C-alpha cells in the first residue's frame, strides 16, 4: 500500500494509547468526508506564526513548506501572523495522498470539505497516527502539524515514530523535533518563540564548528562525544548544537538520549 489509510490511522491512534475521546471521531470525520480535499484547523502553540501559505516561523526558525521565491523574502516578517494550524489533506480511495500545513490563511476554495475548528490534542493524535505508516511527504508534514498543535505533548509518540515510522523522512523529522524539545528542556528555554537569542561569541562559533565537524565523523566516534557535550557542557549554545546534530544522526543512541532528557518511556 502506497499511502496510509485513514481507517488504519484511526486504529493506530487507538493503539498508541491516545485515550482522548475526540481522536477516533476525528479520524472518522476525515474518513467520512470521502475522497477529495479535507481541511481542519486547530490552535497553534504560542510563538508560531505564518503567512497563510507555505511559510511557518517558530521564532528562531523559519520552515518552508511550499514554493518560495527569493524576492518574497523581503516581506516575510511583515506577513508572518499568528493563527490556527490549517491542515488540508487530499484523499483518494480512503488514503491520504497529500497533506499541506500552514498557519492561518483563507485560500481554501469551495471544493474543500471543511471540518472546521477541532481540538488541538485530538488533531495531534490523529496526525501522529497518520504519520506512522505514511509516505515521505505526508508523514513529514503530519509530524510538523502535530508539533505545532497547542496544548499537546507529542514527544512520547514522536519517540516511537523516530524509531519505527515507515518512511525515513518521518523518522528524521520526528528525531529533529525530539532534539529541539530536548534542547529546550536542558537549556530551560521555550520550544518556540525564542527569536532573540544573543549572538554567539567567537569561542562558541569555533566550538560549534567543532561539533559540526565531529558530527561528520563516523557515528561510533562522534555520537558518544556529542552525547557527552549535550549532557555536561556548561554552555547552552553548545548543548543545543550537540543535540541538533544528534537529531540529524539517525543513531539510536541519540533517540535514547532524547527520551531520557524528556523523561519518556522507552
Amino acid at each position, binding site marked *: 500500500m502506497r499511502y496510509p489509510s485513514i481507517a488504519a490511522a484511526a486504529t493506530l491512534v487507538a493503539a498508541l494509547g491516545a485515550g482522548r475521546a475526540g481522536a477516533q471521531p476525528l479520524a472518522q470525520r476525515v474518513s467520512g468526508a470521502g475522497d477529495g480535499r479535507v481541511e481542519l484547523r486547530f490552535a497553534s502553540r504560542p510563538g508560531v506564526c505564518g503567512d497563510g501559505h507555505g511559510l511557518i516561523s517558530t521564532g528562531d526558525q523559519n520552515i518552508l513548506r511550499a514554493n518560495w521565491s527569493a524576492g518574497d523574502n523581503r516581506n516575510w516578517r511583515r506577513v508572518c501572523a499568528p493563527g490556527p494550524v490549517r491542515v488540508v489533506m487530499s484523499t483518494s480511495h480512503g488514503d491520504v495522498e497529500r497533506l499541506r500545513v500552514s498557519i492561518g490563511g483563507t485560500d481554501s476554495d469551495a471544493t474543500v470539505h471543511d471540518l472546521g475548528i477541532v481540538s488541538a490534542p485530538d488533531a495531534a493524535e490523529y496526525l501522529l497516527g497518520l504519520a506512522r505508516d505514511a509516505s515521505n511527504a505526508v508523514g513529514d508534514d503530519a509530524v510538523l502539524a502535530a508539533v505545532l498543535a497547542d496544548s499537546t505533548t507529542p514527544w512520547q509518540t514522536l519517540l516511537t515514530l523516530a524509531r519505527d515510522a515507515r518512511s525515513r523522512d518521518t523518522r528524521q523529522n520526528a528525531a529533529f523535533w525530539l532534539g529541539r524539545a530536548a534542547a529546550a528542556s536542558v537549556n530551560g528555554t521555550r520550544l518556540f518563540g525564542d527569536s532573540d537569542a544573543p549572538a554567539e561569541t*567567537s569561542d562558541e562559533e569555533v*566550538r560549534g*564548528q*567543532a*561539533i559540526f*565537524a565531529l558530527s*561528520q*565523523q*563516523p557515528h561510533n566516534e562522534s555520537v558518544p562525544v556529542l552525547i*557527552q557535550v549535550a549532557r555536561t557542557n556548561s554552555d547552552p549554545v553548545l548543548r543545543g548544537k550537540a543535540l541538533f546534530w544528534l537529531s540529524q544522526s539517525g543513531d539510536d543512541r541519540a533517540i535514547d538520549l532524547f527520551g531520557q532528557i524528556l523523561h519518556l518511556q522507552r
Partner: protein
Amino acid sequence: MALTNRAARAACGAAAAIAAVLGAPAASAQTIADRVHGASGDVEVHFAARPGVCGNGEGSMTFRSRSSAEDDAYWSHCEPGPVRVRLTVSNGAVQAIHTLVGTRHHAITGLTDLGAVGDRDAATYFLSLGRTAQLPVAREALEPVALADSVTVAPDLLSLADDRARPVEVRKSALFWAGQVDESDVSKPVGRIAGDSSEDRRMREQAVFVLSQLPDGEGVPALLDIAKTNRDSWLAAKATFWLGQIDDPRASATLRQLVTDSNVSSDVKGQAVFVLGQHDSPDDQAFLRREFDALGTKTLQDKVLMGVAQHGGPDARTWLMGIVADSARPVEVRKQALFWAGQGDAVSTSDLAGLYDHLQGDAMRRQVIFVLSQRDDSSATDALMHIATTDPDHELRKQAMFWLGQKNDPRVAKFLAGILEH
C-alpha cells in the same frame, strides 16, 4: 617497426594471386545473400582477413600497423584471422551483425555455420547491407567490409560516406573504416568533407577525427589547414585538439603558433593551450610558462596552470609557487595556481603548511586550508589540526575544522573531542 597495411598487402600480393588462380575453396553457386536469406536465427560466415588485422576471437580486434610497441603482449595472443561474422536473421532479413577475428571463441547454441565465403563476395555483400539496410545493421556491416582480404574498399566506403541519403551514423562508420583500411591516401576526400560547410556537423567532426587517425601523418596537413584557417571555430578547435594528440613536429609548431596568434579565436586558442599542457615535452611546458602573462584571460591562464601542475617537476614547482607568492598578481590567479599545485606532486604538504604561515590575506590562507583538505596524507591532517588550534583568526580556525570533519582519519574525532573538553 610494424608494416603498414599497404606494405603488408603488397608483400602478400603474390600469395593472393595464387589463391585466386586456385579458386577460393568456399566458392559456391549460391550468393551469401541467398544463403543468409534462406537461414533463420544466428548464422556465421567466415573469410580471410586482410594483412595487419588480428583479433582475440572474442570481439577485440586491431590493425597491427596501428598498434604501438606497448601492445606487443596483446599482439602475441592475437590471431590474424579469419574474420567471422555472426548475423541474426529473421524472416530472411538481417537483424543484427557481430564481427569477430580469430578462432578462439565460445560456442553458441543454435548457431548455424554457413562456412567459408570468398573475401570479395563478403565485402560486396556487407557493403550492400551498408548501402541499403537500416541502422544499426548498416553501420555494423561496414566493419567486415574493412577487414576482408584481397579487396580494395576505400573508394566504395568514401562513396557511401558521401551519400547524404544514408543515415549519418552509417556515413560516419563508412568514413571511419575508409581511414582505417590504409589502402591509399584518403586525406583529400576526408578533408573535403571536413571543410564542406554544407555537410552535417557530425560528419565534419568525424572527418577531422579520421584525419587524425590516418597513418604516417597523412592527415596532418589537412588538420593544420582546418585549425589555422577554417571559419567555423568549433571545427578548428576540434582539429586543434586532434593535432595535440599526434606526435608530429608540424603539429607542435602549429599549436604554439595558435597560442601566440592574436587573430585566433578563443575556442581554438584555448584548445591549443590545453593540448600543449597535456604534452610531456619540456619545451612545450616552458613555452606555456613563458606565454602565461601574455595570454590575458583567466580561462586560458587556468589551462596553463593545470597543464604545468599536471606535468610536475622542479621547474613546474618553482614557477607555480612563484605565482602563488606574487602579491602583485590577482588573488584569483594565485588561488588557482595554489589549487593546481596542490593537486599534483609539485608541492609537498610541508611546503603548503609553511606557505600558510607566510601568506598574507584570508583568501590565500583559506585556499591553503582547502588544498590541505584535498590531500590524503596524515601530515595534511596534522597541518589542519595545527591551524584549527593556533590561528588567531577564528574564521580560519572554523574553516580548518570544517574540512577536518570531512577527513577520514581516526585522529580527527579525538582532536575535536579535545577541543570540546576545554
